[in-house]
């Protein structure tokens, strides 16, 4: 079983100036959704931003995470106040 908190930790560690909101939608430890921003996303197309997220999650993405619905933003378009 994998957790939203664990994904959040991996993202913060793996991406510079990262902010992320990770939800275990089905509460089953397999289907997650995440909103992510990072200074590394500036100037990148969405698919490239998503690639950076998958790289931060590494092999967990293949083994432990069955589904991750992903929404990424460059820092200036992060819609959540902290």
């Amino acid at each position, binding site marked *: 079983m994998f957790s939203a908190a664990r994904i959040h930790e991996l993202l913060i560690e793996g991406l510079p100036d990262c902010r992320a909101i990770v939800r275990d939608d089905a509460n089953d430890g397999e289907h997650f959704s995440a909103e992510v921003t990072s200074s590394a996303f500036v100037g990148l197309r*969405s*698919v490239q931003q*998503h*690639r950076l997220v*998958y790289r931060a999650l590494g092999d967990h*993405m*293949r083994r432990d995470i069955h*589904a*991750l*619905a*992903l*929404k990424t933003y460059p820092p200036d378009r992060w819609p959540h106040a902290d």
Partner: protein
Amino acid sequence: MSDVQARIDKMVKDHDVFLFMKGTPDMPQCGFSMRAVTILNHLGVDFGSFNVLSDMEVRQGIKEYANWPTIPQLYVRGEFLGGSDIMLEMFQNGELESEIKG
């Protein structure tokens, strides 16, 4: 290039629009794949597809080919466009239609 990478490359290059998915367009086996098919049908696009559940070699090989860990995967004119999230985002902002009908 390994045999499976060559097979994948050929499928991608032989079609303007090609979707690697779980299941088939009329019988998707996964929510994300179904959403991808629904979007392409909504745009009225002709597309080729491959059911990765029918071939484990392609199912693993496609992840290396695109350096992308999930299925479905959409290719337009031989270029990897993205997975289900990217397709939805591009569909909503009109980019997908312009990319395909370019």
